[in-house]
Structure formats: structure tokens, C-alpha cells
């Protein structure tokens, strides 16, 4: 299969966007590949995966239902089923592009590049979405937010089909006015105040825009992902002086949960805790943030 130069790029872009939206995406954009190649570090550029890539299509799907924000954190930890939503659409879109335009396309693997560092992805889906203009970095550890859809999950499609790129958002919705007000009052935004491990800090400038965002990812990951817990717990158990201490190290309630997650591959609390998004007015209260709001908006329209 080779690139097809006879394709109407404008029509193709619209058809691809329509396909993604029809399949459930809330937002779709095309990122400027040249910008991505320039921003992403070596080894993590689109061309490192697909040498002849011409376009990177980013899609966003709805993050949570309105009801989801009211459930306990330990239950909500299971709610990040991105595989069954954004990735499915992206996977289908790659087939759609190849089928209709006879041009190579791939669903961008979302996984980590474990050889490269702590939680370094093969490709940054966040960067793709940001450059494609469907999300902007927030004070909540650079989680992308959208002014209409709030908090979304992202997936990317690479293709050798050349499509016109979109532009990043003109304005960043974060911080919301209420967050600026809170920051002015107590020096912290909701996400900064209510993070269970206080991994977020930063500053808002006089114009109410982000000046600095500090994210202690080690602390965040220690709580929600626990990747280092296994060797740490084993090391503690090996160093224990007696059987009881060893059993305490291996089988206390926290670690018992760890073994469970390891052995059955439970997704609960292996990715995010959601507490920063739970208190984020953009994530939870944007006009189209959840199905109820979207239905209401649709009926009003």
C-alpha cells in the first residue's frame, strides 16, 4: 500500500473527522506533524514510529459521566476504560483511512516506553491533542482540559495521508475564574488544595493565567500507580528480622491489595485517582462535560 496523491485532502479530513465524531469522539483535530517532530524528544517523535507520517489525528472522548464524580475514589479508579472508547475509535479510524483512501494509517500505541524512563510514553498523546487544538494543559499536572468538554481521554491516528493541521487553542480554559478567585484567597487552586499527596503547586499571574505549574509525578504515581511498590515491599520483607515483620511487610492490607492488583491485573487505582479532576470546575461543569449536560445542550439547541 502506498500514499494516494489523488485524495482530496479537505474532503478526506472532513470525512475522517465525521467518522470519529460519528463513532463517539467529542473532539477531533489534526496536529501539525512538523511541530510535533520539533517538540517531541528524539525517539518519541511521530516519525520514530511511522517514518512517512504526514498527519497526526487526535481524538478526545468523554471523560466521565456526571454520576461518576460522586463515587468513592477507590471505585472511580476503575473508570478510566480508555481502551474501550478512544482507542477503539482510533483503531477504527485507521482502518477507515486505509479502506477509503488506500493510504497507510496506524492507531498510535498508547503504551509506555519502559526502557526510556519513568512513565515515558512511546508517543505523547497529550502533545498530539494539544497541538491539534483539542486540549490545553492545566495546573493539574498538565492534564489537558477543553472549555466545552472538560476532561477527556485521547487517542491518536498516524497516517501518510496529508491533512491540513489545526491550531492549538487560542485560550487556555485553566484556571477557571473560580479557581483564580480561590488562588487569590488562599494561594492554592482546588486541584492543588485537594490533591491527596499534595503533588501539585504553582502560580497564577496577575492576568489570571498560568505562570508556573509544578507537578511531583513521583508522589502522584506512588499513590495511584504503585509501580515501585513491588520491589520496595519485597526489599522490606527480605530485610525483615523476623517472620512476623516479614508477614507484616508482605500482607498488610495495603500490600495485600497490591498483590491482588498485580496478580489479576486489576485496573483500579493503577492509573489515576481523579481527585484533582473531581474538584476541577472545568472537568466537571463545562457546558458539555458529561452526557446529561450534552443532552440538555442538544435539546436546548
Amino acid at each position: 500500500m502506498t500514499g494516494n496523491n489523488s485524495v482530496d485532502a479537505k474532503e478526506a479530513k472532513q470525512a475522517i473527522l465525521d467518522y470519529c465524531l460519528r463513532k463517539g469522539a467529542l473532539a477531533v483535530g489534526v496536529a501539525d506533524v512538523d511541530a510535533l517532530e520539533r517538540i517531541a524528544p528524539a525517539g518519541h517523535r511521530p516519525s520514530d514510529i511511522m517514518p512517512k507520517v504526514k498527519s497526526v489525528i487526535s481524538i478526545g472522548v468523554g471523560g466521565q459521566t456526571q454520576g461518576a464524580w460522586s463515587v468513592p475514589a477507590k471505585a472511580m479508579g476503575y473508570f478510566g476504560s480508555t481502551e474501550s472508547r478512544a482507542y477503539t475509535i482510533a483503531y477504527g479510524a485507521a482502518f477507515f483511512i486505509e479502506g477509503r483512501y488506500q493510504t497507510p494509517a496506524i492507531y498510535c500505541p498508547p503504551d509506555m516506553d519502559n526502557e526510556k524512563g519513568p512513565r515515558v510514553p512511546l508517543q505523547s498523546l497529550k502533545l498530539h491533542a494539544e497541538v491539534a487544538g483539542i486540549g490545553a494543559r492545566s495546573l493539574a499536572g498538565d492534564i489537558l482540559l477543553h472549555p466545552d468538554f472538560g476532561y477527556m481521554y485521547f487517542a491518536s491516528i498516524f497516517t501518510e495521508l496529508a491533512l491540513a493541521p489545526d491550531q492549538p487553542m487560542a485560550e487556555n480554559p485553566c484556571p477557571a475564574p473560580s479557581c483564580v478567585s480561590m488562588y487569590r484567597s488562599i494561594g492554592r487552586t482546588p486541584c492543588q488544595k485537594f490533591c491527596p499527596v499534595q503533588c501539585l503547586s504553582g502560580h497564577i499571574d496577575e492576568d489570571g493565567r498560568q505562570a508556573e505549574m509544578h507537578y511531583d509525578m513521583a508522589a502522584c504515581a506512588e499513590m495511584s500507580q504503585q509501580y515501585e511498590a513491588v520491589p520496595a515491599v519485597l526489599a522490606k520483607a527480605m530485610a525483615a528480622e523476623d517472620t512476623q515483620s516479614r508477614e507484616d511487610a508482605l500482607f498488610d492490607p495495603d500490600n495485600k491489595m497490591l498483590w491482588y492488583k498485580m496478580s489479576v491485573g486489576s485496573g483500579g487505582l493503577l492509573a489515576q485517582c481523579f481527585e484533582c479532576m473531581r474538584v476541577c470546575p472545568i472537568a466537571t461543569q463545562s457546558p458539555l462535560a458529561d452526557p446529561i449536560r450534552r443532552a440538555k445542550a442538544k435539546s436546548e439547541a
Partner: protein
Amino acid sequence: MARGLSRQQIGVTVAMIDSYGDLIFQMSHNHQIRRGDPIREMDFTAIEARRDELGMSDGQIAERIGLSEMQVMYIRTMMERRRFHTNYFQRLLDLGGGKRFRQERFTAHEDRFQYHDDAFALREAMTFDPGRARHYAEQGWWADDTLSGWLARNVAERPDAPAVIFDEVVMDYISLAARVDRLAGGLHGLGLGAGDVIAVQLPNLPDYLVSYLAIARLGAVMTTLYMPHRAREFETLLGHSRARSVICLSDAGGFPAAQTALDLDLDKLQSVITIGAAVPGAVPFEDLAAGAASADKLGLPRPVAADPFLLLYTSGTTASPKAVPHNSHTMLGNARLGAAEHGLSADDVILSAPPFGHLFALYSFHLALYVGAANLLLPAFTPPGLASTIEAGRATALFAAPAHMAACLDMGLFDKHDCSSLTLAILSGSAVPDDMARAVDSKLPDCAINQLWGMTETQGGLYCRPGDGIETAATTAGRPAPGAEARISDDGELQVRGSMLFPGYFDNPAANAAAFTEDGWFRSGDLASLDDQDNIAITGRIKDIINRGGVKYNPREIEDLLDNHPGVVQSAIVPMPDKVLGERACCFAVASDPDIDLDGLCQYLLGHGIAKTKLPERLVLVAEMPLTPTRKIIKGRLSLPEPIHSQDPKRDETKNA
């Protein structure tokens, strides 16, 4: 065994980890800083300038500082491990659903409550046979009973119902619970908490029950001191129990209890809480009970049924008391199951003649709390006091020792007072004389007279049921409680096991070795017989058996006869060592006739058909018997006279002042 590359293969030394570790950790994605919004603004200059702050991969770091990528990965991993906070995960478990994380409310693992060594040692003592424990749980004999839970249930179901009646004062369940909650908060403010042993020496006042419930609410452990206990008992029992605090009177009838406790040199004892006049150095009880910081407001965790909550010292006839721990499984399950057997309900008014320091009285309180009945209080037993309290308080259920009833009978109090409200009288604490039980029955015709056999170790092990009739109740202790099993060994000893049985003496392996059979039954030390209706009669104590030259006999029948002798108030026959026969019988007696003598008593016994070999061979007159709180004679405290070294000892009489 599979292994990874060694440090030597990678070329990483400990010195390198120490030297580069912090740098690599900070350069990695573990810490990210973004200034402004350069990517969205496509400000490539800023992106390039600030790229490193957003975090670097291992390869980028390696290039930057001149290590291999594998070395960076190894050092970073080691640093992540060194810095890893295993317990961060805990913060998530109660968040969400409207709960927000508050740094000031979060307590790190290392700062969280842990049982101190003494408390943990007591918990270790709560060891049960696993097969039995499973059986008890499966049968429902062990459930989620706790005093706090029962009190809360009563508050919910009958908040205005009387919980405690004392003199003219009636405290309803909601008031009782509120005072308990405040006192528990006050005790917490003193630094007392789950697992701490708190001793109580109080008469049967409302605040005894408030103290008990507050201690239980904390998850602490109550140990009891009897009112007659003085400095020596204080030191022994508070020391052995590792008590952290004691609640007592400032002045217990002339005994300065609080000051005595304050003067003790016990390193575990942290506070003395006193009721009555202020005592320097002691904490006024009322200050704690009136405090604003209640246990519920403080969010103190509620105890569970498996927590030990009582540590009682045996009131048996042995000289050295033994510590009996109970949790709610053993203790409260027995009361829950017993309530229906005794026919008790929320309409009852329950009165205990013995002090709450004794298990039998606590049993009555447990029953009352379980069914939601009222507790009618008698601060200290006197025969007139008991009779007038029954009459004034319209008691429906009475828990008393035989001696209590005997005293009332002797004084004709059941004729002088209207005790017709009584529908149940449970007699326990010592052997119940047949004729005494019948006499009470005749005086209280509408009241079921029931014997109950129990020990501190077993609580209510056997008892008659209200419908059994006086013939059974006067002659036997009835049948095992639900959850209890009883058997009689070849040598006549009553042995029990069941869901109500304590797990073993605390910190006393020698006593435990002697207390249980190889197959796990508890040796009661009581002699028993079984009738054809499966009722068990208690016939004496093994230790009381006289072995006179190989002829063994139980002195109980002789004591019963002597107690009916017109010149004898109370008698006790104990074995007396003898070089020739091994043992001879020595009779101790409280006499109402000062001229009574051994020959006269023996003629009296012979006249009642007692064999010559069973006649007492010494007589010791005493002013009063050493008694347990349930007025059982403590034979171990009776001082034997010097032996007479003779083949045929002359019958001797000794008078003790």
C-alpha cells in the same frame, strides 16, 4: 534463579548512586515544571529553553550528564525505590463521593495508633482453638456484640426508656449514652485509648455503669477492684493488670482510695480519676464526664467483638487471684443467648445484689443492656437495703447470692416488704442450700427461683430456666447455657467448654496448664452430679474433698447440717494435713452460741446419720469468715491450726479472735 545485570556489569557503584542519584531523580519526569504555556502558544524558543524542566527520559539524562542510559536507569530506579512512600496509597481509600482530602486531617501510617506492648500482650492472650472458634461463629454464638453497639441500639429503639434507676433518679438510655460518650472523650483526653487497662473501684452507682460503658466505648479494658480492697490489693492487681488508670472514690468509707492509688509506685499507672472530694493529683471524674469532646465527636473508632474488654481477677477460693480476660464474643454472646433463656425483656427492672466488681453482677447488667431493660441499683448490700430497693424500685428480676437471700430470710424481710414484683430470682456465687431455695420460693410464690452456676472464667455456664419448678431449682444448677457444654469427669469434676469460656489466664502459664484438660475442657474444680433430667447439681469443690487415710468424702453435706445447727451461723470444713492419715477435717465456724464445742457438734452430726469417719476433728471458732463479693467463703484464707502429732489426735478446739 533468573537475575538481572549486576552493578558490576552495568558499572554502577554505590558512590555513583549517592553522587548522581538526586540529580537524576530531579531531571527525570518524576518532577515536572512548566513555566507559562509555551506549547499551546507554539513558542519554540521557550519550549527549547524549558524542555528539561518538563522532565527528561533516561537517554536524555545520560547524554546530558555523561553516563550510559543503563546506568541512569539503574540509578533512577534505585532512587525511586529509596524515596518511595509505600503508604501513600492509603490516602485514597476513604476519599471521593464528596469527601475531600485535607492534609490536616490525614495521619500518616507511622503516626497512626498502635497498641502498646502491654495491650498487645493482652490481645495475644485471646487465643482460641480455631475449630471451636469457627463452630461458635457458625452457630451464631459469637457475633458482633459489643456494649457500645447494644447501647446505641437501645438509644435508637427506646431512647426515653429507663436505663439506670438509683434512688429517685432515673437515667434514660439517651442520657446514659450521652454521659458515656462524654466520659469516653474525657478518658481519651487523658491519653487513654484502645487496649489500655482501666481499673474501677466503685460501689454500684450509676457512674460505675457509665465508667464501664465509656471504657468499653474506647476499646479499653476494665479491670475491677472490690470495695474491700486496700493498698495491698491495689498494688497487686493494678500492677499485674498493667492498669493505666483507676477510677475510684476519694473516700471509700474511710479508706482514701484515690490517695492510695496515687501513692503507689507503679510505672504503668498514669492517672487516678476520682469521684467525690477533690484529691490533689487526681483527676475529677466529673470534669471528664462533663467535657465537650465526646468520643463520637472525636471520631474515635468503635470497638469490635473480638477486642478484649474485661480483665477480671478470680474471686475463687484460691489465695492467689488469676487474671481472666474476656472479649465480647465470650462475654456478651453468653448474655445475648441467656436473655431469652431467662425470659428477660425490655420491660424488666433488673437488680443485682452483688457489686459490679463481680462477674455475676456484670452478667445481670449485660442481660439488661441486651434486652433494653432498666438497671435498678443497690450501692452496697445490706439485707434491709436489698428488700426496700426491690419494693421501691419494683424490681422484676433479682440476681443474688445465696447468702444475700439467707440474710433476708433470717431477718424476715420478705414478710416486711412487698417483693411481689419479682418474677425471677437467679441465685449464684456459691452453693445454694436446698432448704434456703425452698424458703425463698415459699416467700415469693410468683417468682421463679433459679440457680445459676458460673465462674469468672465461664460466666453463665449452667442455669435453671424459669419453668423448671422449685424441685429442680432447689437441687440443681440446671442445664448448660446455649453455646456451653458440660461433662462430669470420672472423678466427679464438672468440666465445661463453649462459646462463653475464657481463652486462658493472662500471663499465667502455670495456671493455664492446670486449668484445662488435654482435650480443651475447663476444669471447674467443682464436684457435680447429673440427674435423669440432665440437670447438673453442684455438690462441692474438689479442693474441699477430705482424704482421710484413703477414705475420701465431700464435706458439703456436713457443712449444710452445721449451718442449720442453732449455735452455728456459718461453717467451713477444710482438709488439715496429717502425717498419719494424710488429711483430717478441720471445722471453722462462726458461732452464735459461745459455748459450742466440737463434741457437741459431733453428737449433732452423728444424730443426723453422719458416719464417724466424716466427723470434724478440729474446731476453730472465728469471728467472721473471709468472703468473696458474692459472700462465698474463701477457704484458702482460713488459717489452719498447728497440727497435733498424735496417732489418735484429741479432738481439739481453738478459738481465734
